[in-house]
């Protein structure tokens, strides 16, 4: 779709030594999968790809370079860029070190949904467009195949960029918001749903490690003194971990869904931080990562902060 331009631009930046490294996506070893790649030489830019399976949030791969002095070009979707904005606001990097190649994104497609609707699928049967694809002689709109977090995405365009490759787009008019759906259920049903989902969690921390904003040196989940949770994935410890993580992300989560897509057990783990962000939005009219000048509500004090709970 815009792969050639991306490769050209990345090559330019490396050849001109404007950046030391380019972090992007390349094809995975399995069909319908892309994986992160680090490119440091101009010839290797041929390996960069950009398609509907570019699932990981690449901003996460900036984290190991906080202490270095390298200049990095990052291929970033709308949500990935929001994460970079927050990392910049939280002073993890000086602005000059990150060169954002912004990519307006039409959403990540779920392989699971493709298999459910189309049965056994082979890569060669598909031909991809921005908003649709051809398969088995039929044209399909991607809407019903998108990952749940992408179906409700409000910010497909990067809010900050040094290069923009692709066409800016309007947020999707989606009828399906899985957060709304679950929020509208009765309490009993919701509790059933979440306890069932979280009982399947094996506490591998793939969700946490895939998140660009979970970068605490020692995560509270692994703290020994004090010890909050054990190493066993019991329901109560799992609840503690996921609720705790969602709260630690309050006002910082960029709703990218990388956590949910990383989960090997396919648990709808994104729902929890998304709900917290909804609450933040309703109470502070704030959405994270949209501008370098924003002030995160839980990190700034304002005299007119809500205070009815103070009796």
């Amino acid at each position, binding site marked *: 779709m815009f792969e050639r331009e991306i490769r050209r631009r990345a090559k330019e930046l490396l050849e001109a030594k404007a950046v030391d490294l380019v972090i992007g996506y390349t094809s*995975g*070893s*399995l*069909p319908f*999968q*892309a*994986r*992160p*790649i*680090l490119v440091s030489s101009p010839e290797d830019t041929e390996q960069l790809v950009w398609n509907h399976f570019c699932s*990981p949030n690449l901003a*996460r791969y900036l984290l190991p370079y906080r202490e270095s002095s390298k200049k990095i070009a990052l291929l970033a979707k709308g949500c990935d860029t929001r994460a970079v904005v927050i990392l910049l606001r939280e002073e993890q990097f000086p602005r000059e070190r990150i060169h954002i190649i912004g990519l307006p994104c039409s959403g990540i497609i779920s392989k699971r949904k493709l298999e459910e609707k189309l049965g056994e699928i082979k890569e060669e049967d598909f031909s991809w467009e921005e908003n649709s694809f051809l398969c088995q002689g039929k044209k399909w709109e991607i809407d019903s195949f998108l990952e749940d977090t992408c179906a409700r995405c409000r910010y497909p365009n990067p809010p900050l960029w040094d290069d923009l490759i692709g066409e800016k787009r309007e947020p999707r008019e989606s009828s399906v918001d899985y957060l709304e759906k679950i929020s509208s259920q009765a309490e009993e049903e919701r509790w059933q749903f979440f306890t069932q989902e979280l009982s399947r969690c*094996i*506490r*591998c*921390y*793939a969700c*946490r*490690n*895939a998140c660009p904003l979970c970068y605490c040196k020692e995560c509270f989940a*692994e703290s020994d003194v004090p010890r909050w949770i*054990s*190493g*066993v*994935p*019991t329901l109560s410890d799992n609840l503690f971990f996921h609720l705790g993580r969602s709260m630690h992300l309050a006002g910082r989560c960029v709703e990218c869904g990388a956590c949910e*897509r*990383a*989960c*090997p057990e396919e648990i709808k783990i994104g729902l929890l931080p998304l709900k917290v962000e909804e609450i933040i939005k309703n109470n502070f009219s704030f959405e994270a990562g949209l501008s370098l000048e924003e002030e995160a509500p839980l990190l700034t004090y304002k005299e007119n902060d809500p205070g009815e709970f103070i009796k």
Partner: protein
Amino acid sequence: MGEGLIAKDKWWEWIEDKKDRIFLTERAKKRYGEWFPPEVKMVKNGKEVLLPPGEEMYRYLWTGEEWKVEEREFSYEPSFLFLLPCEARAIIEVTDKVFLHPPVDKNYWLRRKSLSLGILACLQPEPTCFCSLVGGGPFWRDEEALFLVPRKEDIYIEGRGEPFSFSEEGGEKIKQEIQTLQKEVEKGLPSPLPSYFPQELYHHFEDEEWNALSWRCINCGACTFLCPTCYCFDLSIEGRLKGFQLRSWDSCMFPKFTLHASFHNPRPTGKERVRQRVMHKFSYFPEREGNFACVGCGVCVEKCPVNWDIREALERMVEKIDRLRT
């Protein structure tokens, strides 16, 4: 050691009778679900039965005057676990060797001796499977376990035990058919790693290849927790005046795995930890026990969030090793 055929109705009779004491792995259920009653308990893999994610090792209690330490008596009903050859190999060739090696791990031993294994032949390897690369195969079997090949109206069976009391003679023809079937299935699978691999891999400990290989890994525990052979665990104390020693799954991918009390960490970054995982499975364990600590089931490849593919890592190292040998 017998072999024979079990007619469908006889099989159902036998299995219905035992259904509360049968475990079936997820992957076996996907392929052979119709051969088992729906009440049969599904488990992810053998680890769930033999090495649960959390278990009590012993308990202690402050009586008011002194400390008392005691262990709970556990006993397990004899049960059956039906699983694929790779999953069975994970138990027989890896976890058994670790936990039954003296001093015998009592908890594991109690569960293991009451568990009989029924290996169901694998007739449809997935694109992520590579059991033959690491010394296994879709028809791998062990003399201590039952080996079953479900066909249309009957099941071919090899091994020892109860089912042979009501099986019929198979005969040479059937044996030939099974062998042909085996060859068919094995066709698409990769050939084994060279025998010099464990030793040569050891010499590549300082290879710069590890930097490139480990960059993408996000150091979560998905591969280790889902792997049927990964067995590393942690021991911790739960409870002040009354409590127990807890054994829980641990992962060599976590940073605190080798952290000393002095805050020195021999494996401080992801690179050392990824290298440790590969070296342990493909060099250290084979040097000690004679076979890889990987059965090629491909679950880690399927589930890794960033598509870290152990087959690629092995390919690259084999390439490097071969290049230096010539």
